[in-house]
């Protein structure tokens, strides 16, 4: 029995040791900045793992091309999405940040506001890129007029459906909300073995298209302060319509109240759902997971209430230069190289995301691929960013919107109650952050 308390204290001192190490690093980190400048030029680059299933060849090629152009070498380090934010935070604390990093759109505001990222606005303008960048990503990367990240790649959510089921029942992709309901009802009658359109409770990014679609706002900025818009009449109408797809029309299953986005994909690959809300990057993975669905899936944009398209959240990554980097000019050369031209196009193609350059995205709209064009159209026509303020990062951290949707779907709260609760929570965070 004595080994138990022993191993516990070992674990505890390991934690303490890590803490002490972090403190030591923090203490002497300030000196390390200048030391690197004299030696051979190397840029440290942090890239998220998993976006591109096999990214090694891409970065080998990039490193070679960059060295040829500038003589500097790249030190590419991969990190997991899940652990990345903590890595950034500890690196900022210890001043061991990389020169260039891929930063998720939802983090830019927080890091930029903290003063960790360099302003890329002047460089983008100088390079003549201002009008060529994807507006949705520029919006996500801009805080108080300062651009903290160069758009790199983007994704958007639309609806993926089973073409064989639609053909069997003689259905066409819906173009209004009424048609969406009608299509769901036809599927419910014609194919009772399938869920027409499951609604996941823990999936905030699909709440917004409906909330925006009916004319609501997630939050609005008045001068320096923000206030929540989810309890407005328009926003409530959108949330109500979205919730009713499950509650009134029964297109979902009660179990989906605790589902995440990945659960939607699982139900689709298992052949249990006829339509799902899905990211533009997912169809490839669906076909890989369920080869028998090959050729049987298509996509259509999330429609607006009476036509047009509902605004959908543009997610993705930007390339940021850290303020602590002592080679910011060199870093910009790399950012420009990755964010434009052949490397941007190649990355987008390999990762099945969209490039952050409008011209390249327009090519995707023309794509004959039925799993590319609808998403590209949604992004070009109605791509939107969630509110860009560090406070919204906090709101996402607290899962306010997901909690709201879950409580509606489980029947614990009405749309009115849940949106009021969520709005109060958002306003509290907005107020404390100001």
């Amino acid at each position, binding site marked *: *029995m004595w080994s*138990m*308390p022993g191993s*516990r204290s070992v674990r*505890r*001192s390991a934690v*303490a*040791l890590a*803490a*002490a190490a972090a*403190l030591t690093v923090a203490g002497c980190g300030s000196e390390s900045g200048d030391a690197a400048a004299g030696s051979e030029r190397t840029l440290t680059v942090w890239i998220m793992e998993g976006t591109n299933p096999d990214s090694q060849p891409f970065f080998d090629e990039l490193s070679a091309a960059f060295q040829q152009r500038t003589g500097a070498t790249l030190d590419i380090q991969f990190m997991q999405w899940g652990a990345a934010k903590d890595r950034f*935070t500890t690196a*900022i*604390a210890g001043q061991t940040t990389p020169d260039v990093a891929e930063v998720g759109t939802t983090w830019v505001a*927080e*890091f930029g*506001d*903290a*003063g*960790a990222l360099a302003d890329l606005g002047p460089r983008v303008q100088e390079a003549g890129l201002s009008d060529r960048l994807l507006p949705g990503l520029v919006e996500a990367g801009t805080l108080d007029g300062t651009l903290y990240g160069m758009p790199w790649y983007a994704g958007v959510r639309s609806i993926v459906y089973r073409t064989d089921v639609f053909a069997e029942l003689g259905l066409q992709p819906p173009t209004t909300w009424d048609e969406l309901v009608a299509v769901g009802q036809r599927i419910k009658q014609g194919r009772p073995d399938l869920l027409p359109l499951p609604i996941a*409770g*823990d999936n905030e990014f699909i709440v917004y298209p409906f909330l925006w679609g009916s004319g609501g706002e997630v939050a609005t900025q008045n001068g320096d302060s923000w206030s929540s818009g989810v309890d407005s009449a328009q926003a409530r109408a959108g949330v109500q319509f979205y919730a009713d797809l499950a509650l009134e029309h029964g297109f979902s*299953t*009660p*179990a989906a*109240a*605790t*589902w*995440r986005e990945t659960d939607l994909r699982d*139900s689709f690959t*298992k052949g*249990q759902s006829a339509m799902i809300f899905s990211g533009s990057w997912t169809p490839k993975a669906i076909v890989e997971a369920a080869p028998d669905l090959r050729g049987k899936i298509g996509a259509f944009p999330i429609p607006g209430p009476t036509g047009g398209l509902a605004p959908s959240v543009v997610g993705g990554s930007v390339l940021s230069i850290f303020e602590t980097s002592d080679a910011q000019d060199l870093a910009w050369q790399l950012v420009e190289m990755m964010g434009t031209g052949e490397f941007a196009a190649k990355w987008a193609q390999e990762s099945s995301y969209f490039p952050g350059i409008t011209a390249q995205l327009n090519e995707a709209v023309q794509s004959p691929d039925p799993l590319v064009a609808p998403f590209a159209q949604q992004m070009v026509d109605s791509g939107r960013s969630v509110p860009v303020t*560090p406070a919204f*990062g*906090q709101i996402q*951290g*607290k*899962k306010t919107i*997901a*909690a709201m949707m*879950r*409580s509606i779907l*489980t029947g*614990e709260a009405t749309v009115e109650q849940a949106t009021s609760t969520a709005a109060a929570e958002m306003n509290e*965070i907005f107020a404390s952050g100001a």
Partner: protein
Amino acid sequence: MTVAERTDVERVVPQAGPPSRRRPGTARPWLLLAPALLVMGGLLLYPLFRVLVLSLQDFGLRELVSGRTDWVGLDNYVQLLGDPDLWATVLPNTVVFAVVAVALTVVFGTLVALLLARLSPVVRGLVTTAIMVAWAMPAVTGTYVWVFAFAPGDGVVVQGLGAVGLVDAATADPFAGRLSFFAVAALNVVHHGFPFAALTVLAGLLTIPRELTEAAIVDGAGAWRRFRSVTFPMLRPVFAVVTVLSTIWDFKVFTQIYLMPGGDGVNRGVLTLGTWSYVESFAQSRYGLGAAIAVLLTALLLVVTVAYLRLLFREDEL
């Protein structure tokens, strides 16, 4: 056990003799203790002190980058203790869950230990190995396995319960309700924690002289009586260690709750101190607030631990 020893020392030292006899050796114990104290001071006390300091500041990413400090006094504590969620949901969830999970862990662990003590060495080795697997499994993996088993729709358990007509397998969702959510979490935590209790109690059981048990049998004591009057008093220190450690673990349980559907803050009804503190502080980059929660949690666990020890050891033994 360690507690008993420590109090012995405290009691003996003041009586160790007149000061004149101790003086030549005063420095030596401290000298011998110095390396350990230095390590402890550097690795435990300093971080602890830093956490205390941090809990009095408004410390976020901005402060992290700029190195500025923003003293807010006891604001963090006021905000925490004034949060209605804490009293209405978080604390009741945490306390009830911990009490149930600790009770189940200790009772089940003790039963398994009593079983193990009766087995032949070979069989005991086999069974021990089997339960060690549950212990060795990382909490993340274990949690995913349990979530998988209870997944609404096609989880093994949901299907099984549906087959015997207890639930409607098509619509039942164990993660939706508060009670069923914590039932699954308790299964997971107890499954992960009972091997420690079982092995620790077993080690204690094997030290009980056979004669005592035999004498009790001769006196006509039944199994329950033998456990109550012989085994339990002999193993009281062991139960103290098992209970206190389990309490600490189950009080601050995080992984097993956070990874379950809704446990990451989406389902506000199932927040516990562990997940609530993460959602309120680190998920929102409010490190000062997080530090204040850590201080409160430490204080709470100290109180619980002391209360337990007092309960288990009567005052005359302390």
